[in-house]
């Protein structure tokens, strides 16, 4: 069993791999969702929505609109579960 943040990261990488059609192992935390992984704004939203639903959290929309990298997604969502670094 990992920490909650690791679980969030696991789901974020899994869903990203599906949405961006990129093997999971090729995705890095520093990758930018739009520029590096080719996600459009709806895919960003779908990623956040699926993970938020699974972990039962309501992320702040203003912050959702500002995330740029994979790590930022994980940090934002984990932050809402109350887990920092």
């Amino acid at each position, binding site marked *: 069993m990992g920490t909650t943040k690791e679980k969030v990261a696991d789901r974020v990488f899994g869903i990203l791999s599906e949405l961006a059609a990129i093997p999971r192992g090729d995705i890095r935390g520093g990758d930018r969702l739009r520029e590096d992984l080719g996600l*459009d704004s*709806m895919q960003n939203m*779908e990623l956040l*929505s699926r993970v*938020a639903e699974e972990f039962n959290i*309501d992320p702040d*929309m203003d912050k959702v*609109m500002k995330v740029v990298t994979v790590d930022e997604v994980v940090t934002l969502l984990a932050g809402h579960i109350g887990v920092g670094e």
Partner: protein
Amino acid sequence: MKITFVYPAFERHADAHPELKAWVPANEYIGPPSLGIACVAAATPPGHTVEFIDDRVTPFNVDHESDLFALSFFTPAATRAIEIADALRARGKRVVAGGIFPSMMPEAVASHFDAVVVGEGEPVWADVVNDAEHGALRPRYSAPPADLAPLVPPQVDLYLGAERDGYRPDDYPLQISRGCPLHCDACVLPEYLAPKMRFHSMDYLTATMKRYAAAGKLASFTEDTSFFPQARRGFRELIELCVKLQGEGLNLRLSYIGISLPIILNLDPTLLADLKRTGIDRFYVVGGFDPVTRGAFGPGDPKMLDKAVRAIARCHEFGIDPYVSFLVGNRDDDEGTFDRMLEFTRVAKIDLAEFCISTPYPGTPIWRRYNDEGRVFDRAWKHYNDANIVFRPHNMTPERLFEGYLYLWREFYQGRARDMSERPHTRSTIQF
């Protein structure tokens, strides 16, 4: 007091261009009014009687007697609303305006009405009624976004009672939420309903769905909010509630959901399967509104076209019928856009569609931009109905855009008469 709510008429595609009736071998569908009047009527304080006149169905008689007239309208109906208000006030009647157009353009309507409600009606409606009763209407009532929790369900019986032979909508809308944090450039909702999303309670939704079921009507979800992170769970709960109510024997039938192709392309497969379980068998999709279809039809980006085709294929895979409303006249659209759209309908196997001119409605970001750029040349509000050119497009003349719009209707429906006549009612009926 007796309060009369009026939903003013507006021109539809085939009213504005009767040649469409000859070209389009589909049944015409007149949909129900937006929920605004039913919601505000439900917030009327006790001690008053309310009635509803749908001017599209029963043309409003200006000699009608009432103590207060409340007109709710969007831009296409503004010309008719002002005409009705002027005639009523000439008889000394009190008339109140509300809805999207008065909220976005209060100055354009103020001189024609005794009072204008700006924003959502429920928070100020009791004040309006009280002030009217005491002969003290104020010129403007500005409503903050309503707290949805205490709202009683919309008084849809007013709408059901307005049905007549020739006007019996199959489905009525179910509003799930209000507000939107995004800023799509042709959408007025974030401005009208505020950026913060608010959700109706399950009790509110249950009561509305039960009323529709009792009347033998289908319920439609006009907007899919499921793609917002805060909304996904609530949306799934609503779907589960529908399945549960159906399992308990309620004759709850759902028709369509308003959605976009990029959402369909990425939506969680389990959610798609759940939607199907409720009996939803149609997606109402606007093409030429989102970045994918704009890229596909404007510059003809092959990657975007491929995405759009895959999204339609996904509908077919889940057994959901895509009904596409094509918007033409966007920023990047040029004279090749019409044929790109038609080619897309062929490749994606779309067999039911409508065609609309992308229109800068007051309150939208493109309204402001096109005005700043000096593109808007027509302010006759009845022409703001997706069927007329009111602005100078970027890459073609207004005349070419208009010809292209008619060309799309004609070409798409050419040769489909027999096929359409053999389809079930719902698959051969469109709003045009």
